[in-house]
């Protein structure tokens, strides 16, 4: 009997088109894209990771109001004015996305960091929302 072993090969990157938001009113000229995000939750916090290539810290806006979280990133054009375009596969524009959160976030302790075009947002849960262990005593 032969045993087939599945060779472990590297996973190939799946190309993904930038998703443009259409139909929204923009206050800045240029297209607006939806960043790809990962959201995961642990016992103490919710973490959001968003791919926002080209966004600088001073062009990033994070707003939490009435349990609606809005992340907004401005991208400056990378090419200087004197360059002539030969090929364009991606467009540069702003990133924007809204999330509705449950009202258990400790808004005072939200932490945001931006590195290599990835935003990492840590939203700690409010104390009251954390699961509490209830001791059961034997009678």
């Amino acid at each position: 009997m032969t045993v087939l072993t599945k060779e472990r090969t590297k996973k190939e990157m799946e190309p993904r088109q930038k998703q443009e938001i259409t139909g929204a009113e923009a206050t800045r000229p240029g297209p607006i894209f939806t960043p790809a995000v990962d959201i995961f939750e642990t016992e103490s916090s919710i973490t959001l990771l968003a791919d926002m290539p080209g966004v600088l810290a001073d062009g990033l806006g994070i707003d939490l109001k009435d349990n609606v979280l809005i992340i907004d990133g401005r991208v400056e054009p990378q090419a200087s004015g004197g360059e002539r375009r030969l090929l364009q596969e991606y467009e540069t524009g702003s990133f924007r996305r809204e999330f509705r959160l449950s009202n258990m976030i400790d808004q005072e302790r939200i932490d945001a960091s931006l590195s290599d075009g990835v935003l990492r947002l840590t939203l700690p849960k409010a104390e009251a929302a954390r699961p509490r262990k209830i001791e059961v005593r034997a009678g």
Partner: protein
Amino acid sequence: MILKRIPSLPSWSTGFRELDEARRDMERMFDSLTGFTTRRSAGVYPPINVSEDSDSVYIRAELPGIEIDDLDLTMEDNTLTIAGERKQVIEDDSAAYHRREREWGAFRRSFALTSRVAGDGVKADYRDGILTVTLPKAAEARPKQIPVHAGA
């Protein structure tokens, strides 16, 4: 044009900014009317933009969240290859995922350049999730000013 061949050329570019913008406006209008997105996926990773000025050719790629050590740029016989891997970040085992949209995996793209590029002066810079490769043009490819002499 510096690029001789690009495997699976994704979207056509007219080379004229005004025409490109008019095309995108049309696509946007069509999208809003039909509710469908007409733009095709580039089908390749990473997506790149190529531009030039009189001194250099610039290749820019959107590559958010890559460790510099996981990026591999090579230049061989006028072929520039951008390869690398975006690693999957393993978070806390107890974490429950609500959304997982960010892609990860290995990628590789090659570009054949014409001999007008001075290969040894190639520079690469990775900042804020954008990789910029600057390829200086060979001296003979740069525009030259021709002095005009007044007749005696």
